[in-house]
């Protein structure tokens, strides 16, 4: 059962790179015998490189050479080249890459219209080739940022393409939203233009905000440095991703933050790859968390935080892990789900956690959460037996909650500030296929979405309407 990640743009590829490293590490820890199994096959192909990589995939038996099932797309070469020269160079081959040289200039229209049209056929061809190698293609992941040009523009172009070519395969998008102080001036334009595409073509979107990632990384640093966790950082720390350093050092900007997003994807797919007493597949996530087609934005949190770092920590109070999942500090966007309205909530537990622990915590936390009237007990749960590497347990919480609204409202405000003055519009409008209506339609789509959340919020705390039951003749 295959999940196919597409990393588009600089951010997407940097996150993607962390993702592949972590995935290999996770499978290496579980798969001691070096046998190519079902779990591995969801992200990797097994090939014999002696045939120049053109031979058929090796479905069973020993691992020969693992190749990631992925497409790496960037309109600049820098990031992708670095990946190909780094420790992951053997995991990809050139056929999985689509690159150009000049980049998209932080311009959604360049990414979407110009490069989209230019590379359409090539993308479709490589997409088909990659899909051919998959026994059962369940889900596409797009990893990108919203604020730039390639990830945002070309990334959403790919999203459209995926819907056209493979309408039945689920499309999950992990989108990094720009912060207010983003140094790309046109990021609001790019983000809102991309949002329209996400509204219309994605099955599920996991929005991420850099500020939240930054805060979480700082928290982890504090925890480690204060000695609260009671021990030292291991070599090969995920936080540093540096093999030699024993101290926490930020090797590259964003590296530590990207690890978090990579972990999100790993945890999301863990139950599909590994055994458990209550499996939770990706199509189940979409089914349970999306009550209405456009309301598909899911706020995520990963707890305990120290599972995001490679520290040797004795497991702490289990219940704290559950409590933290609902606190605003642990969400991957700036949002407070506890004080907004839940439409649905999913909890995926990994490792040494029993059914009764899960149920006890749901009972305990339920009273402090607000659920929409037609889904008062709306919980989706999953139990996966395999914990993250080096830890005994972890929890991924996904919430369809109106707390995403402020993020969207702020985005719209920043957009309007620029749009009212028609600032920088000419950069977009001179691209073939771009018109003013693209902008007005995009902001209109965003407004509609915000309005849907408003209507739901209005029902919060009020009496739940009691629809009378069907009466039948006795």
């Amino acid at each position, binding site marked *: 059962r295959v999940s196919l990640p597409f990393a588009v743009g600089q951010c997407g590829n940097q996150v993607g790179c962390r993702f592949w490293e972590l995935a290999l590490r996770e499978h290496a820890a579980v798969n001691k015998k070096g046998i190519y199994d079902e779990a591995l096959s969801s992200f990797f192909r097994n090939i014999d490189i002696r045939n120049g990589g053109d031979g058929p995939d090796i479905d069973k038996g020993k691992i020969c050479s693992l190749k990631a099932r992925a497409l790496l797309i960037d309109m600049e070469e820098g990031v992708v080249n670095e990946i190909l020269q780094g420790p992951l160079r053997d995991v990809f081959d050139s056929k999985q890459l689509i690159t150009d040289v000049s980049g998209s200039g932080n311009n959604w229209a360049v990414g979407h219209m110009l490069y989209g049209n230019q590379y359409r056929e090539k993308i479709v061809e490589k997409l088909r080739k990659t899909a051919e190698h998959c026994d059962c293609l369940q889900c596409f992941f797009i990893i990108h940022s919203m604020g730039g040009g390639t990830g945002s523009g070309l990334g959403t172009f790919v999203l459209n393409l995926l819907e056209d070519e493979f309408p039945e395969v689920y499309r999950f998008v992990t989108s990094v939203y720009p912060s207010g102080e983003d140094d790309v001036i046109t990021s609001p334009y790019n983000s809102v233009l991309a949002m329209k595409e996400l509204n219309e073509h994605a099955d599920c979107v996991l929005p991420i905000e850099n500020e939240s990632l930054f805060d979480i990384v700082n928290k982890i640093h504090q925890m480690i440095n204060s000695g609260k966790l009671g021990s030292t950082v291991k070599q090969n720390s995920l936080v540093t991703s540096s093999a030699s350093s024993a101290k926490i050092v930020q090797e590259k900007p964003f590296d530590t933050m990207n690890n978090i997003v990579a972990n999100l994807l790993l945890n999301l797919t863990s139950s599909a790859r590994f055994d458990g007493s209550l*499996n939770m597949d990706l199509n189940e996530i979409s089914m349970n968390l999306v009550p209405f087609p456009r309301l598909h934005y899911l706020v995520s949190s990963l707890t305990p935080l120290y599972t995001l770092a490679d520290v040797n920590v004795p497991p702490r109070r289990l219940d704290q892990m559950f409590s933290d999942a609902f606190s605003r500090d642990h969400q991957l966007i700036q949002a407070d789900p506890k004080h907004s309205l839940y439409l649905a909530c999913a909890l995926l537990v990994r490792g040494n956690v029993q059914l*009764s622990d899960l*149920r006890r915590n749901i009972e305990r936390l339920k009273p402090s959460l607000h659920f929409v009237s037609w889904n008062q007990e709306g919980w*989706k749960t999953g139990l996966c037996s395999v914990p993250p590497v080096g830890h005994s347990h972890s929890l991924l919480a996904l919430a369809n909650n109106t707390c995403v609204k402020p993020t969207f409202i702020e985005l719209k405000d920043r957009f309007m500030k620029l749009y009212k003055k028609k600032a920088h519009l000419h950069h977009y409008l001179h691209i073939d296929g771009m018109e003013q209506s693209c902008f007005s339609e995009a902001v209109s789509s965003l407004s509609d979405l915000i309005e849907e959340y408003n209507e739901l919020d209005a029902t919060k705390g009020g009496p739940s309407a009691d629809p009378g039951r069907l009466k039948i003749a006795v």
Partner: protein
Amino acid sequence: MSIVTVQLGQCGNQIGHEVFNTICGDVHGTHGLCSKKENESYHDACKERFFSEDESEVPVARAVLVDMEPKVISQTLSTAARSGSWKYNDRSHFCQKQGSGNNWANGYSVHGPRHKEVIMNLVQKEAEKCDRLGGFFTIMSMAGGTGSGLGAFVTQCLRDTFPSSFILNHVIWPYGTGEVIVQNYNSVLTLSHLYQSSDALLVHENDVIHKICAQRMNIKQISFRDVNQVIAHQLGSVFQPTYTAGGGSHYSRNPLGDLMESLVPHPEFKMLGLRNIPQMPENSLAYSTFHWPGLIKHLRQMLIANAKMEEGIDWQVRLPHLSSSVPSTHSINKPLHFNTSIANLVVLRGKDVHSIDIGSFQDPSLYACWLNPQEAFNAWKTPRAFNKYEKSTSLVSNSQFLLKPLDNVVGKAWNMFASKAYVHQYTKFGIEEEDFLDSFTALEQVISSYTNL
């Protein structure tokens, strides 16, 4: 006669595995506290019912395993084989890769028709291995997509292909505070469809079994395995061989037929609940003794007061005297309302069974007025003790046991349906709003029938 078990979805396969484990463990692992001859009869009857043989002499479960994703079946097959005392047939399973996504419509309208032929072929093969086919036992949960949706479809196919065979669906009622958000939709669709093709639905509620694990079995960290083992014990306590009243000196050969005949006199009433006592941690068994009169008394009160387990039974609930002229009002929430029955079956296993007086279960006030209490009550017995319990008794009841849970599920589903939440996920696969309405109507009818007993 033999029973062919169809295990559907993750839940169905996990429970099915525990059921065969329990049955095998009971036959081989305990000596039954009876004569050798009795034991051998029991063993033979059990084997005929549940197992076939192959060259290896390890008993092969008469089962077909179906799931839309591979991990659970794979684990189930290997765990069984490792036990050394029984196994599944290597070829009696069917799985796909992508799962049903908790979507009833996907299970019923897409996977069902697509894989009908392959699945029914496997069932046919198992059926042919039986000298005489006693019927089908399907195990499924209502909450997910495969067990529920595909399970409903397969049940329909079983009915079409084997029109005169008995079909008993074992249905797992999910926890009230969800395991799956759309579980109430899936449940409503499942129940309404099963009602059309099945002979009876035997229900286990996760919440109830969970409580039993916590309070009776003293398990601190409850896992699904614990829950499934309690369920398996309860099922075994009903389906392991017994003597029926008219059966003479042989173990009954037609358990499903006997069950239907005893418990389902009218097709409108198919919901069966199950109670089993005593239930306690294994290491306490050696220190406990039980007396039949006490067990019978408790079981009867559990029936009358609709108690889910042997703790916290409400002894205030009493049957009305027949001579009283006060008509009982039919309200679900009326305090002290007693549980009215259509039919009851009590199974007794252990020492001195033949001396037990169970006349109290034939009290006419237990039953709806249009029934004959002599026919509405049956008892099955065997002196052979079950699964390390010196004495064990079970009640399978066609009564208002499941009225409240059913009403709850339909209510919650209707509440969600009124807002149309999630409906697009079903229409995507061909289940329209009209289909929902048909299901709601069918179940409101069932609720009404049970309410007005």
